[in-house]
């Protein structure tokens, strides 16, 4: 087929309208979320003392941190799904959870410690955390990658890593309501490790499936 003929067939298909990447990503995440919630409901569940925990600012802070990862990661991943997009000017959005954690760690350090630092750091749930966040991330990661496949990222591994951060942020939001370790030190250590692992899986998968 010569190029003029190809162009003719493309022009004939001009009426076809694809949905926006944001719409496809949203739909895919909404389809994947029940699976992650099912994992959560089956194996974890909300912690029993949730009503009193809500009065603890460090409990609430966990949700601020995880959502400040998930939401900016969605925004940046949609930005990067445009082929000409650069990371420049957008990367700082991903530092929001880091900044929040730094503030939280600082304020906890200024209070009289309820527990020794090593207890707060290691907690009781570090192993559960490292398994539960990646496990609940998997359906969401698949959804995020499916959604971003609709875009045209110039850096598929980077876009995949962001899909990983989206899914880890959302999974960690669920997990935070289960976990009884509220110290920002615990969150900074174990949530970060779990999210980094999911981001690495996302980057690896992205480099394969996000090429267009």
């Amino acid at each position, binding site marked *: 087929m010569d190029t003029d003929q190809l162009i*003719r067939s493309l022009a004939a298909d001009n009426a076809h*309208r694809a949905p926006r990447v944001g719409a496809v990503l949203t739909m895919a995440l909404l389809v994947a979320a029940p699976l992650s919630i099912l994992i959560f409901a089956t194996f974890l569940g909300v912690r029993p003392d949730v009503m009193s925990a809500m009065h603890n600012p460090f409990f609430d802070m966990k949700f601020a941190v995880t959502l400040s990862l998930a939401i900016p990661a969605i925004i940046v991943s949609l930005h990067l799904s445009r082929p000409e997009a650069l990371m420049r000017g957008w990367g700082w959005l991903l530092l929001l959870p880091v900044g929040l954690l730094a503030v939280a760690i600082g304020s906890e350090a200024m209070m009289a410690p309820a527990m020794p630092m090593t207890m707060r750091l290691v907690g009781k749930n570090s192993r559960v955390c490292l398994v539960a966040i990646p496990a609940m991330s998997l359906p969401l990661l698949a959804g995020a990658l499916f959604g971003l496949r609709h875009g045209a990222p110039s850096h598929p591994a980077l876009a995949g890593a962001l899909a990983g951060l989206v899914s880890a942020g959302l999974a960690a939001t669920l997990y935070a309501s289960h976990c009884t370790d509220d110290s920002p030190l615990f969150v900074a250590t174990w949530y970060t490790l779990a999210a980094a692992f999911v981001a690495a899986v996302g980057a690896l998968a992205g480099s394969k499936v996000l090429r267009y």
Partner: protein
Amino acid sequence: MRGREDEWTGLMRSAMAGDDAAYHRLLKAVTPVLRAAARRGLARAGQPPDQAEDIVQEILLAVHLKRHTWDSEAPFAPWLFAIARNKLIDALRRRGRRVFVNIDDFAETLPGETPQETASAGEVTAQINTLPQRQRDVLQSIAVESASIKDTAAKFSMSEGAVRVALHRGLAALTAKLRDH
């Protein structure tokens, strides 16, 4: 150069608003620029320039299937060149070369540098033959015999909607095959 790129942006806006003729003109207008850049990329990688047309066709397919990622408020050329650069790198990598593709390859096309008007490419043609019968028939009819959607529908006793679906699926399948083969 500026004027040319503004014209492209205008044509693409019309195309997205449903003007098929504007879309046709735009694709015709960008093709020589893509061809020149593909030739230059191949030359720099020490590859024969006769594969340029394959790359041009792959870029055009990607432009078509990803045009919803273009922001109609933004200029068209940077978007186009980003897709072209990506496809050129991919194509050269598949041919076993790692090369640095300069974005200026696309921007710096000299006026008058317009190699042959149109050319045939082997890869797309080869992959068309692996498509399902119906998609292949519709593509052949519209591309090669330049039949309209309406005429194609009459010829194969299909509805126009079914022709449109087969055409779009055929183009999408073609792109996937070119990427993965």
